[in-house]
């Protein structure tokens, strides 16, 4: 990845709407052919970043560089980029074929050639050939997704942008389309910049992920880096169900939890650490039989259980706090609800983060 040339570079990219700063000084380099995903909750500014990249908003500060050239003032219709919108923004008054051919028609490509290319793309995206004359409004959600992607590919952009195109699709179809999208990325070799609020979706598809919060890019890394080494409480929570304990540095390099009146052994500590949060993933948190089975142990009450397919999630109450523990189905606890249990974890399975 690092050997590839940078295609897009953002330098202190900023966008303000009146007094509100939606995007606040973002620095980022995306490599040629990379599948880069920006994740963040709604209002984090990720769509604004994408709209600036596409040329649909102009930055109020900073620069956007495309292969080293500043493109801040190049309008959307003259950028070699194309966007798949959240609403898909298909032309409802046109057929599937006309939608896909639109960018070709704009460039005065002869009709026969347009149709040939459209049918090619339809085949590539597994749209039946007889859909060519079908009204897009009569297509299903998944079919419309494919039409939107085909239309964007017909433009033959160097970079494709995706603004949460799968957010309105049901789970099963979304999973299929995620894989298809990754396949298309491999087949075309184009750079994909994708936006979603679902880190799970980002994990499946991306080469690298950037996490946005309140207009800032708070962490950039591979899916594995984001998952195993979140750099803040925000990022670790964003990944999904997670156990978080406020702690401070105590004597002997141990961590003091004031809430539980206990000290824990610490994992690798960030420089100058004084207080923060200890993060333990549900799969690293264990329900144990003896105190010696883990380095750090708390006693709680087994409060509830949820079946998650191959795993079972348990909720354990320790004081006011609820801890989440996940076990494989084969290791299900039977008849233990409302009884006291020991939960524990090892220091190397925990992560220390700031806010």
């Amino acid at each position: 990845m690092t050997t590839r040339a940078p295609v897009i570079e953002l330098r202190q990219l900023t966008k303000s709407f009146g007094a509100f700063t939606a995007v606040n000084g973002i620095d980022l380099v995306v490599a040629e052919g990379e599948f880069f995903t920006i994740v963040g909750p709604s209002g984090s500014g990720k769509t604004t970043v994408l709209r600036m990249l596409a040329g649909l908003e102009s930055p109020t500060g900073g620069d956007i560089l495309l292969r080293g050239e500043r493109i801040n003032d190049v309008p959307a219709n003259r950028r070699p980029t194309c966007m798949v919108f959240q609403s898909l923004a298909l032309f409802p008054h046109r057929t599937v074929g006309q939608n896909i051919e639109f960018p070709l028609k704009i460039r005065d490509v002869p009709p026969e050639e347009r149709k040939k290319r459209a049918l090619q793309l339809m085949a590539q995206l597994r749209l039946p050939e007889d859909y060519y004359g079908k009204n897009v409004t009569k297509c299903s959600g998944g079919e419309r997704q494919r039409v939107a992607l085909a239309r964007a590919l017909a433009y033959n952009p160097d970079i494709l942008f995706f603004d949460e195109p799968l957010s309105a699709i049901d789970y099963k179809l979304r999973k299929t389309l995620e894989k298809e999208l990754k396949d298309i990325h491999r087949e075309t070799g184009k750079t994909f910049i994708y936006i979603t609020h679902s880190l799970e979706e980002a994990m499946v598809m991306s080469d690298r992920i950037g996490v946005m919060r309140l207009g800032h890019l708070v962490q950039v890394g591979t899916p594995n880096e984001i998952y195993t080494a979140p750099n803040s409480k925000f990022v670790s929570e964003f990944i999904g169900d997670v156990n978080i304990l406020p702690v401070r540095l105590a004597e002997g390099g141990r961590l003091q939890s004031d809430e539980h009146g206990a000290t824990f052994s610490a994992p690798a500590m960030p420089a100058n650490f004084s207080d923060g949060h200890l993060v333990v993933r549900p799969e690293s948190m264990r329900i144990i039989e003896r105190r010696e089975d883990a380095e750090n142990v708390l006693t709680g009450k087994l409060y509830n259980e949820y079946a998650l397919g191959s795993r079972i999630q348990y909720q354990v109450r320790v004081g006011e706090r609820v801890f989440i523990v996940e076990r494989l189905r084969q290791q299900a606890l039977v008849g233990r609800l409302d009884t006291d249990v020991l939960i524990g974890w090892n220091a190397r399975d925990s992560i220390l983060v700031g806010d």
Partner: protein
Amino acid sequence: MASASERKMRAGPLNALPVALFLLIGFVAPLLAVIGYSFMPARTFSLLQAPTLENYTGVFQSSSYISFLWSLGLAAATVAILALVCYPVAYGLARVFGRWSTLLTLLFTIPLFVSENVRLYGWILFFIKNGVLLGSIKSMFGVEFESWLFTEGIIVMGMVYVYLPFMLFPMTLGVSMVPVETRDAAFDLGATRWQVFKEVDLPLSMPGIMIGFLLSFVLAVGALVEAKVLGGQRVIPIVHEIELAFTYAQNWPLGAALAVLLMLVAGALVLLVLRRFDLDVILGRR
């Protein structure tokens, strides 16, 4: 005992009965009377004569068809000018003016509360020789111009002025129905502003435009006072002709035949447009 749903089903038509009766007496009956009279011999006042087609054949032998052409021509010119004038304003109201749109809409609406005749006589005072416009120019610059009053042009202007809201508001609705992301997408796919307008804005705002066309055209075909007041009866539109037949000429059957023909022409045009532009198709509902 009738079940609740049965009672509910009977309640619908029952509640509609007053309106249905009112429509029957106030709309259908006069319409039928007009149609009936159009087949009666000329200058008779009874509906019980032997029917005849002489009124219809008479229309094409007399000069009445000229009035027809005037009315259709003036209406067509009015609608064409309205379309050009209103689209940019509608675009502004729907997309650009933001919170000022409400105020502007109000400004366009308020004149509707003043009688059309009063407004047109206001125009007379403005444009008449030695009136507000020409009088001021004369006293300030000593130059005298011919008044524009009593010309075909001023009739069209008056009609454009009077029927503007009927084109503007449906059009504004039409423009506001075009999804912003669809326009963005077209632009992003390489379209120039003109191409975005031609390929996305225009076809997607077509329902509103068509409703505006139909409303203003049907109203303009039936326009009378603009020609009478501003045009000084230089042009006799068909509605004026119908009025004359019913009043001075005391020839109800002729007036009725003209009215029926006018309805047929306007109705045919409306049907033609609605067939050509199926609103549901444009809206993507079918």
